[in-house]
Structures are given as structure tokens and as C-alpha cells.
């Protein structure tokens, strides 16, 4: 038995098809105007989970990059301070070598001692270097002055300053001024302050024994301090290298994550445009067919 097609059924079918096509067109239009394949989780539940993960990765990568930026600025400040100290200590070494010469008169030695005192002040000033109001050579006690005026005691702590530069990857970026400068001449620790202050005392006293000490023990101590400083600067340089590598890697990761997110979340415009024109054609055809179908009836042919 053939199906009996009634006038109403015909009209209902045309209407239903038009509605369904319109629904598809509207979904395609949403993709076109938003440029997104996934505008709500039901568009692709698995893709949504993936997209959220990638968005998280992208955000984390951005944060790591900003952490690295901060760490680089910190190490640069540290490096500048240490390099300043290096220049000062080198100058001090020259002065010591000159002061240890027996032919020099006492007034010249006193002048050298004056300059050594200025170098001590300079070294202390470099130790108190700050980045954004924070003492970079004070460990985690970044708010305490490492060497406040009138005190030879180190004001910071020995704790590491750590920055996170990747998932489960962190790097210690600081050096402690205390390790290099020590606690002054009273401590006899052989570090920078102790050595320089003693040099200054020996220059001023001018006794044969002191001048001898200048040329031997003091010079040896100063070389030791310079070696220590060299190691510190090498460490800072290594950290700095690691950071700039991390920066490159993070930039790459950011590009990859963005590309991944785009492929998951964004609409394939070519595909969507083709879909749109196909659906739009189908819709127009349905409209035309509907208009032609419903119009005629037997009544048009009866007189």
C-alpha cells in the first residue's frame, strides 16, 4: 500500500525540514562568527577536556616565562654586583702589591690605606645591591640589609632563593654576600672584609713584619677571596645560561601549546565555509520546493 500523503502532512514535512536546516545553519553560523569548533562542552566533550588541559598548559607556560624573566633580572643584578666587587678587589690587589714594596714611605702607605678603606665601603655597597627593593645577596632575608652601616655582621641568611621555571623544575638563583665578605677583622675568617680591613691596618702600622704579612699572607688571602668570587660569578653565569635556555624552551612550548589548542578548539574555516554554503543552498532549495509544492491542489483544475 502506498502511503497516503495528505495536504497537512506535506505542509508539516516542509516546515520540519526547514526548521532542521535552519538549526544546522545556525550552528554553522555560530562556528563561523566565533571561529571556534567548540563553543560549549557538548560540541565535543573529549575535546573540551583536552582544550581545558591545553589552556592550563598555556597559562602555566606563560607564568613560567614570567618567572624566568624575573629570575634573569635577579641574576643580572647579582652579576653586576659581583662584577663590581671583582673590579674593586682587583684594584685592592694592585694596591697591596704596591704597598708591600719596602721602598714606599709611610705617607704613601697611608694614602693606599685610605683607598683600601674606600674599597671596603665599595664592596659593602655592592653586597647591598637591590632588585626591585629586595637585597639580592641576602638569601631569603631579602628585606634585611646584608651589611648595614657600622656592622660587619652578615644580616641575611643562607637560604636558597628558588624560582620555578617549568613543571617540577626549579632553579636556585641567589649567592650570599656572607659567603664572600664574612664577618670582618674580628672573626679572622680570611674572607673579603677580614682581609681588606687587616690590609688597611697593616698598611697604616708600616712595621717591617706587617709589610711582610702584606706581601705574603694578606696577598694570599686576597687571592683566595678573588678565587671564591670567580667561582661565584661562574655559578651566576651558569644559572644565567640555564635561564636563557629555559626562556627559549618556554617560548617554543608556548607556540606548540597555542598550535595544539588551535587545532583542538578552533574551527577549520574552509570546511565551515563549505558547510555553510552547502547548507544555505539546501535551505533555499527547500524554501523553493515548499513554495511550489503547497500551492497547487485539485481545486486549481476544477471549474
Amino acid at each position, binding site marked *: 500500500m502506498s*502511503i*497516503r*500523503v*495528505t*495536504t*497537512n*502532512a506535506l505542509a*508539516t*514535512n516542509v516546515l*520540519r525540514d526547514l526548521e532542521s536546516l535552519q538549526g544546522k545553519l545556525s550552528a554553522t553560523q555560530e562556528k563561523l562568527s566565533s571561529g571556534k569548533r*567548540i563553543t*560549549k*562542552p*557538548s*560540541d*565535543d*566533550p*573529549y575535546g*573540551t*577536556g*583536552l*582544550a*581545558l*588541559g591545553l*589552556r*592550563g598548559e598555556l*597559562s*602555566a607556560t*606563560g*607564568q*613560567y616565562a*614570567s*618567572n624566568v624573566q*624575573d*629570575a634573569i633580572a635577579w641574576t643580572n643584578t647579582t652579576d653586576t654586583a659581583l662584577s663590581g666587587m671583582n673590579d674593586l678587589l682587583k684594584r685592592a690587589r694592585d694596591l697591596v702589591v704596591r704597598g708591600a714594596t719596602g721602598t714606599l714611605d709611610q705617607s704613601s702607605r697611608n694614602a693606599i690605606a685610605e683607598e683600601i678603606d674606600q674599597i671596603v665601603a665599595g664592596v659593602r655597597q655592592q653586597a647591598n645591591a637591590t632588585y*626591585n627593593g*629586595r637585597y639580592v645577596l*641576602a*638569601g*631569603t*632575608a*631579602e*628585606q*634585611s640589609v646584608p651589611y648595614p652601616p657600622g656592622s660587619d655582621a652578615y644580616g641575611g*641568611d643562607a*637560604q636558597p*632563593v*628558588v*624560582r*620555578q621555571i617549568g*613543571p*617540577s623544575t*626549579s632553579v636556585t638563583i641567589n649567592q650570599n654576600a656572607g659567603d664572600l665578605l664574612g664577618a670582618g677583622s674580628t672573626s679572622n675568617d680570611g674572607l673579603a672584609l677580614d682581609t681588606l680591613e687587616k690590609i688597611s691596618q697593616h698598611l697604616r702600622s708600616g712595621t717591617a713584619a706587617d709589610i711582610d704579612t702584606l706581601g705574603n699572607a694578606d696577598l694570599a688571602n686576597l687571592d683566595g677571596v678573588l678565587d671564591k668570587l670567580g667561582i661565584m660569578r661562574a655559578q651566576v653565569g651558569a644559572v644565567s645560561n640555564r635561564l636563557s635556555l629555559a626562556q627559549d624552551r618556554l617560548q617554543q612550548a608556548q607556540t606548540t601549546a597555542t598550535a595544539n589548542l588551535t587545532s583542538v*578548539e578552533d574551527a577549520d574555516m574552509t570546511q565551515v565555509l563549505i558547510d555553510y554554503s552547502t547548507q544555505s543552498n539546501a535551505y533555499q532549495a527547500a524554501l523553493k520546493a515548499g513554495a511550489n509544492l503547497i500551492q497547487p*491542489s*485539485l*481545486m486549481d483544475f*476544477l471549474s
Partner: protein
Amino acid sequence: MTSTFFGLETALRSLRANQEALDTTGHNIANASTPGYSRQQAVLTATLPLTLPAGGHDGVPLSLGSGVEVSSVQRIRDQFLDLQYRAQNTLHGYSSQMATSLGEAQTAMAEPSDDGLAARMQTFWNAWSDLSNDPTSTAARQALIDAGTDLAEGISTLDGRLQTVADQAADQYTSLMDADGPVKADADELAELNDAIADATQRGDAANDLMDRRDQLIDQLSGYAYVKVVPSTTRAGAVTVYFGDTSATPTALVDGDVRGAAAVVTWPPTLSADPQGELGALKDLSSTTSGPIADLRTQLNAIAKSLVDAVNDAYTAGGTVTGSFFSATAGSEAATIAVDPSVTVASLHTGTGAAGSNDIALAVSALRDQSGGADDLYAAFASHVGSYVQNAQRDETLSQSLTDSIDANRQSVSGVSLDEEMTNLIKFQRAYQASARMLTTLDSVLDQLINRTGVVGL
């Protein structure tokens, strides 16, 4: 021998029958667009023949046709298609409500976007990371507390929105099942129609249009919940309607065996645990223990709990420092999560050492990479919501197209085709015209017999 006027009677019967058929056609045309209307057909039957025991010239009995009559006006309807339609319509009622409500839940989540909960979590982790870079900065501390508050509010707002979807479902259920609601109104009208149809049936009338209305009401009820229709065994024409009761021995909503609306309708009706249809969906949605919304809220709660526990554990460095960053009531973490009131710009701690130490801040911000942490759980949650909505929408589309196709079948049987009615119109009109001509012919025959026969030479 037949009566002289036998032919006139035959022609009259034909005129009447064709006029009734024309009237039925007119009724069909008038109701071509009436929802729920089934086309009617005047059933034409040849009347009993006049048997002449020795009518023939050879003394053989003769059956002489006596014309036509309309034996009944029949409603063209397939009861089996009605059953199919109602079963499918019940499924459609369920899936349509599910798709709508779950769609609202999905909209409330607003993922994937730059303002959703996932983005707020990222902002929160970033704020901890920023703080680890500059532990003593007041600005970084304030930004962190703000990000924490924002995240906590985002979670509790989402939980509240899910709760609203459940509440709205409960309200809709109550209003549907209200004594002034649509179900009760349909039931009352069904009872009245039952009485009218039973009365008509008793008179031998078909009450086609009342039956159409009754079928339409039952169709409507089938969207709300499961329905079962059983013809009454004691009252011809009446039906007993069971509503939302899938048990083996259901209680009737409208009892077809009894007369009188008040006694017949059982209100409120007995509903099964799963009444199916729209009511079934509303029941599932508003449930606090099972169903999709309850399931999603449980998941969201687990996310909130995981977040609170992990952050607080890292914030106290595994219990070595006192304090907590988030506070929440155990068991309803999603609804009650907030930044602990004790956390201020001054009291916030970032590490176990000096003011500048950042081990705690680092530990908290590292939670973003924790496998199975809050971020992972939330991504799974978003996927889950998406699957729920996708399934509900797929079910809705499927049940819609099945309902439509069964309805199309039904229309194919019961719908009015104007072309067909126009054809019938011409058919019956011609038959009527021919019968009238028959009458004229007989009249002129009788005229010959009565007025002209035996008159000679006048």
C-alpha cells in the same frame, strides 16, 4: 409485484444517503487543519433487497435492490499507531526535558572560555607563582587573595547554579502535578468525555469527534508520563486511563467503569518511582541522591574538596605551619568554599623561613601540575557535562524524529487529504444529481400512467 412508488423510495434513499455523504465530506474539509482530527467516512451500504416470493414471470423468487443507506459514519484511525505514538511521545517528553535542563547546566559552566572556572584556577596558580617570585610584595599578596576569592566564588556560584536547575525541575514537577495543573484538567475532561461517549455509544451513535478529542488528551498526557489505555469491559465506549504507574497492578487515573467526574478521577494519582516522560525527567533532575544534576554536584564537590585539601596541605607545609588558606564545610565543600577569614595581606605566609622565603608559595603553585589534581578533575568534569548534554540532545533528536515519523504515519491514515475530499465531493454530487434525475424520470413515467393512460379521444 412491487409497489408503484417503489422506485421513488429508492431514489429518495439515494438522495438522502448522498447528501449525508456530502455533509461528511464538508465536515472533513472544515476540519482539515484541526489538530487531532481523524477523517470520517460515510459508510454506504446497499439496503436490504425486496424479495418477491414469486416475482418472476416464471414464478421464481426475485430479489429487487432497494437502494442505499449510510449505515454509519466511521472514524478512520489506527489504534496501533496511537499506541506507538504515545510510547514514543513519553520517551520524547523525558529526553526533551533532560536536554533543556542539562543545557542550562552547561550554559552555567561557560566552558571553554577565558572567564570559566578553569581560567580562574589558572589565575589562582599564577598568583601563587607571582608571589613566589616576590614573597614580600603587598600587591602580589593582595592579587593572590583576590584570585583565591574569585576562584572560591566561581566554584560556589557554579554549585548554586546546578542547585537552581534542580530546584526549577522540582518546581515544574509540582506545578504539573498541582490540583489546578494541566494533568488534573486533562483527567477531568477525560472523565466527562468518557461519559458522553458511553452515552452516545449506548444510543448507537459513534461520537467520532468526542473520541478524537479524547485521543488528543491521552496524547498530551503521554508526554507527561507513561500512559496505558484499556477499554472498559462494563461500559461500552468508555476507557480506563492509567498514568505514570508502571506497576503490574496500576491504579487508574480515570476509571472508565464508573460514571461521574468526581468519583472517577483519582487525585493525586499514584506514580511509580519512575513515572517516565517529562515527570520522570523532572524527578531525575531534582533528585538529591541520583540523577545527572546530583551526580554533577557530587563531582564538583570532589573537585572543591581536592582543591581545599591540597592547597591547605601545601599552605601548612604538611602541618608544620598553622593556618589554612581555604575554609569549607566538610561534605559540602563546593557550596561553602571561601578564602579563610584569617588570611590577610599581613598574615599570609609564603614560606617556612624568613619573610622572603617562598617554599610554601612554590609548593602551592606546583599543585597545578599535580596529576589528578583539581585542574584534571575539573577538565574531566567539563567533559562529563558535555557528554551528558550531548547524549540528552541526541536522545531528543532521535525521539523527536521517531515521534514525527509515527505521527506522519498516523496522519497518512487519519489526515484529511483535500484532493481526496474534492474527489468525493464531485462523486457524491454527481450521484445526488443522478438520483434527482431518477426521480424526474420516475415522475414522468407515473405522469404517463396516471394522467395519460386510458384517456381516449379527449
